[in-house]
């Protein structure tokens, strides 16, 4: 899933300061699961904004609504009546959702309430890590199901570098596991270390974002 995190309150207060009537729009998909922009977070953020406004003696009308997914036009239609007459929409979706709303409401400014972080998942309650780099040409079969592009600080394909110590990455030994130690251990367990002795050639990054913004066209699915 896409993992995101709410922007600092100070930034959100500054962002909303010029407006008197806003819509705080949540998303029921990934950001609900990672507790950043679902119905509950919409409630919390709206309350915080109202409290701050009251302290400053300025009026704020904050409408609230969470759609099932902000990344599909089908679902965002639900926001139409609530968006009527607001001066700005504060989207609590990932960057994808923010853009869908911006497209749907050409005359209303749509601002992001979250920082979209990565494609990943939870390690335990309250902790998420990055897992996939979205390179467009998956190599997980060669690396024991552990992605060196997303999880090695240098995205090495023939790792580990010299900075691997006790299973940790020198970039942040407290928080980052050395992906190549994990790959080595996993391949050893699978009895496939010989794969790691092979040189992985330079990657064709044209499948990644480096080839320009990407698009998938599925002829069989196009109506």
């Amino acid at each position, binding site marked *: 899933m896409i993992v995101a995190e709410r922007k600092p309150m100070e930034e959100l207060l500054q962002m909303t300061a010029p407006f008197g009537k806003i819509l705080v729009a949540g998303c029921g998909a990934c950001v609900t699961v990672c507790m950043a922009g679902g119905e509950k977070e919409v409630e919390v953020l709206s309350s915080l904004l109202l409290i701050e406004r009251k302290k400053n003696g300025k009026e704020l009308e904050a409408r609230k609504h969470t759609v099932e997914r902000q990344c599909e036009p089908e679902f965002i239609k639900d926001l139409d009546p609530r968006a009527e007459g607001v001066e700005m929409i504060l989207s609590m979706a990932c960057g994808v959702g923010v853009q869908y709303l911006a497209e749907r409401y050409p005359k209303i400014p749509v601002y992001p309430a979250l920082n979209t972080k990565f494609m990943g998942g939870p390690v335990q309650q309250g902790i998420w890590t990055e897992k996939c780099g979205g390179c467009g040409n998956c190599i997980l079969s060669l690396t024991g199901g552990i992605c060196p592009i997303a999880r090695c*600080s*240098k*995205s*090495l*394909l*023939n*790792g*580990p*570098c*010299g*900075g*691997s*110590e*006790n*299973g*940790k*990455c*020198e*970039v*942040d*030994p407290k928080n980052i596991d*050395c992906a190549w*130690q994990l790959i*080595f*251990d996993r391949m050893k367990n699978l009895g496939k*270390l010989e794969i*790691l*002795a092979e*040189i*992985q*050639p*330079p*990657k064709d*990054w044209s499948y990644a974002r480096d080839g320009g913004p990407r698009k998938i066209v599925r002829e069989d699915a196009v109506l």
Partner: protein
Amino acid sequence: MKSESRLEKILSAGKFAVTAELGPPKSADTAVINKKAAYLKDVVDAVNVTDNQTAIVRMFIGAACSLIINLGLEPILQMVCRDRNRIAMQSDILGASALGIKNMLCLSGDHQKFGNHPQAKNVYDMDSVQLIGMVKKMRDEKKFFCGDEIKVEPRMFIGAAENPFGDPFEFRAVRLEKKINAGADFFQTQAVFDIDKFEKWMEMVRARGLHKKAYILAGVVPLKSAKAATYMKNEVAGIGMPDAVIERLQKAADAKEEGIKICVETIERVKKIEGISGVHIMAIEWESMVPAIAEKAGLLPRPGVN
């Protein structure tokens, strides 16, 4: 000969090679290079010119290499994968060859987190193993990575690094072999402080016959103080600093002198290891000590080459 490199000539003649490091200045000042080069001239066979080491901005390696060629030294151009994609790398390699640079050391590079621009975007279009392969292709096949022909090829003696003290230890000799298979002609290792572990690694290297496929130069670093050694132990991953070394420096009346002594002893020990073809003296911001170290370790005078 794969190149016209003096270092290659010395190594292929079976002579024990000595290299050192010269960090380009954090300015446009050539005086710093002149000063450091003067310490190293006729004391070592070739000099590594480091590429924005620890991700701190320094003078362009090509320029620094060219400057030291003019001073009569042979440079080993270090190139890291952190700051260049394959287009820039190949362009720089052509330019390096045109400037008379005959040796390269291919590295992945220190992460920008450690430098003075931690906000920078890194590149890592390729890794060090892949860079080695690309330089070899340019030299031996006269082709760019894409397959286009190169009329006048860059004739580089190709170097690589390996850290015998990084984890996973049992993979380190395999990784050396990968670099040899990619095209590495010589290696300069991470600084050796834990000689016992280094010997164990060399056993693994010899078991694979790798010491016969590439020249291995053991890295050494003279330590200035117990504080410096402790810092390395705690802050530099994969350094393998034994407590005994720190204790020696603590107890010494003159830590700097003791540091030099330890360095010389290390050279003497690694010199005896089968498969070690030379030493790489990394006197970080202490280039002035290289002549004394080389002298005490019996590495002078340096052999001439034809």
